[in-house]
């Protein structure tokens, strides 16, 4: 019996309960809804919720417990020789599940295991059948209990309100808990890493070469995990990107907000927003295939040696990517500067550019700073463009014509391919991720504070 069918059945029952509950309320009202405490639709919703929610909860719990319980039952019947050895046990369990799922015909295993597999299949069938029965019972019980509770002055509306509130609390709890869970797993894996590598070496080391020996007999270095070159690379590329994005974004925002005719604005703004919707991987191959070779060739004609994966190429393209971000945020803050300030300035005989420079821009400055900080945190976390265009060489350099690498690029390369989960190399990705997370979090909090402070001023 499939899950889809069960869900459909529950949904159908809910719909029925809704109709029943509503009908009963209407019947009780004797034609005048004002005799009821709530509207008929509230009574319907009330019965539907009482029918559906307990059934859904049961479904979730049942599916969570079914696997462990049936497995435990099967294991308890296996001979001790198999259960005593964890390795053998896990092999046997694999075979058992395959047999139970009817894919085990070609397996060459002990007869006990085959028997256990068949038993597991039977257990699953029993469990599924029981589920259907219990589920329907629960749903129908919920339906009949709530149906019978309906009387004219029952506060169905308030009850529904309360149930819905709990549902919403549940949803926000899931959102918050999963975030917290991710942060904590990041934290614990990073701590695990720091038990292998000195945190001071990680934070202040000048060399990054994470290759370590995977097997004891392999010849390899110990690896060094100094993150400074990665952060320097990240900052260099971010700096280049901001040098591109801030002036262009800001000036285009000023033009759009203050000078452009409504007609031009009407199509230019959406156009900019489309630019924001280009997938970063597209920017990435643009950087790697067009901009980087162009820079290298130009450099060659000028007698400069430009590496074919230069920080400059990645930074320039990342800057272009961030332009719409800067321009739409700063356009927002500048358009929030009240018209009365513009009028005041024009009324004194100021020109447009004087008004912008001396009144609008200073008034919007906190918001613009906030926008720029948000853009910086975007740039620091950006991955795709740098993976494709910035290269892997962990050079500690301030020369934008050389190849550098970034924190995000290293995280990707550390985790791509077959990895041993426990090695310092793999774990270092979590430490890098944690640092990246803290930096962008700090920037975001700071930026939002700035923007908030600005908002208060004109409310």
């Amino acid at each position, binding site marked *: 019996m499939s899950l889809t069918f069960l869900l459909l059945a529950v949904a159908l029952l809910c719909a029925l309960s809704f109709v029943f509950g509503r009908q009963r309320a209407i019947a009780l009202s004797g034609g005048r809804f004002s005799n009821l405490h709530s509207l008929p639709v509230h009574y319907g919703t009330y019965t539907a919720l009482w029918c559906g929610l307990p059934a859904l909860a049961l479904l979730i719990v049942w599916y969570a417990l079914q696997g462990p319980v049936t497995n435990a039952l099967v294991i308890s019947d296996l001979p001790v020789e198999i259960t005593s050895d964890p390795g053998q046990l896990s092999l046997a369990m694999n075979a058992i599940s395959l047999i139970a799922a009817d894919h085990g015909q070609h397996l060459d295993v002990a007869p006990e295991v085959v028997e256990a597999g068949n038993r597991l299949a039977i257990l699953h069938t029993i469990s599924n059948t029981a589920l259907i029965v219990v589920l329907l019972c629960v749903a129908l019980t919920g339906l009949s209990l709530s149906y019978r509770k309906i009387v004219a002055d029952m506060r169905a509306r308030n009850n529904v309100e309360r149930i819905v509130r709990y549902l919403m609390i549940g949803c926000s709890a899931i959102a918050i808990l999963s975030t917290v869970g991710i942060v904590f797993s990041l934290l614990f894996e990073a701590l695990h890493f720091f038990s292998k590598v000195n945190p001071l070496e990680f934070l202040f080391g000048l060399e990054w070469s994470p290759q370590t020996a995977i097997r004891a007999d392999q010849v390899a270095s110990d690896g060094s995990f100094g993150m400074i070159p990665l952060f320097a690379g990240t900052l260099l590329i971010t700096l280049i990107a901001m040098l591109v994005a801030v002036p262009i974004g800001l000036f285009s925002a000023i033009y759009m907000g203050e000078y452009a*005719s409504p007609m031009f604005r009407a199509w230019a703004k959406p156009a900019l927003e489309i630019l924001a919707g280009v997938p970063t991987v597209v920017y990435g191959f643009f950087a790697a295939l067009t901009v980087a070779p162009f820079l290298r060739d130009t450099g060659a004609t000028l007698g400069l040696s430009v590496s074919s994966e230069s920080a400059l190429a990645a930074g320039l393209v990342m800057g272009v990517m961030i332009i719409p971000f800067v321009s739409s945020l700063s356009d927002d803050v500048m358009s929030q500067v009240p018209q009365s*300030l513009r009028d005041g300035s024009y*009324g004194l005989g100021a020109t447009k550019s004087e008004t912008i420079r001396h009144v609008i821009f200073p008034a919007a400055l906190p918001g613009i700073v906030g926008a720029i900080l948000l853009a910086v945190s975007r740039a620091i976390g950006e991955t795709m463009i740098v993976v494709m265009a910035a290269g892997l060489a962990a050079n500690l350099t301030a020369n934008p014509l050389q190849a550098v690498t970034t924190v995000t690029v290293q995280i990707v390369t550390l985790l791509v391919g077959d990895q041993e989960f426990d090695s310092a190399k793999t774990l270092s990705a979590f430490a890098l991720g944690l640092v990246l997370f803290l930096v962008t979090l700090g920037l975001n909090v700071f930026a939002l504070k700035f923007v908030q402070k600005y908002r208060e001023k004109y409310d």
Partner: protein
Amino acid sequence: MAVVTADAMTNAPHTRGKSKMAARDLDLFYGDAQALFNVDLDVMEREVTALIGPSGCGKSTFLRCLNRMNDTIDGVTISGKVTLDDRDIYDKIIDVVQLRARIGMVFQKPNPFPKSIFDNVAYGPRIHGLVNSRDELDEIVMTSLEKAGLLKEVKDRLASPATGLSGGQQQRLCIARAVAVSPEVILMDEPCSALDPIATAKVEELIDELRSNYTIVIVTHSMQQAARVSQRTAFFHLGKLVEVGETDQIFTNPRDERTKGYITGRFG
């Protein structure tokens, strides 16, 4: 008490002073909607002219024609003539920026810039290059604040933000800001509508003092205020100038039924 003559209605030069600004045959459209119809009005030098009328009748619109603030609104078309000292201000050779330096404006809601008190007043002189030294600038700021009756209250906190002042102080700061560029005409659009009675009284007193040096046009929704501060009053209705004359005459002996209805409170 002036005798009510046809002169007042046709805006013949007034006996008390000479006409500083004049509107002739002024029509204004917001897009397709006409907001002003055929307005003819003289503003006398060194007098306060009050514009009254029910809300939406075009007082602000007319006021904004006098310093071309309507230029900043999209879709406004104007026909007719507005003169300052007999020069058409809508003439192509007129520089709006210089024009607005000669005709200052004070708005309904106090709108100090989010800068220090000093910088607010210094804003105009700085952008127009009226000063050559810091001392001159200090001088202008001080005298402007003095003229606006604000100096005593703020002289110890010139560097603090103007937005920290009370509403009445902010409005007087805006007047000081306008005065600092030495305009010839000051336009005020309901300058007291956001102020409490005490602040209002102070601003009215100030307007009366400024009259000796400046030509003032004030929009007001309060007839008492018009009676208190103005020498001439113009009554607008539905975008038309219905009647203009000496304030005493308008309030005691209006010629038009609509004016009479408005000032006796029958509509508006």
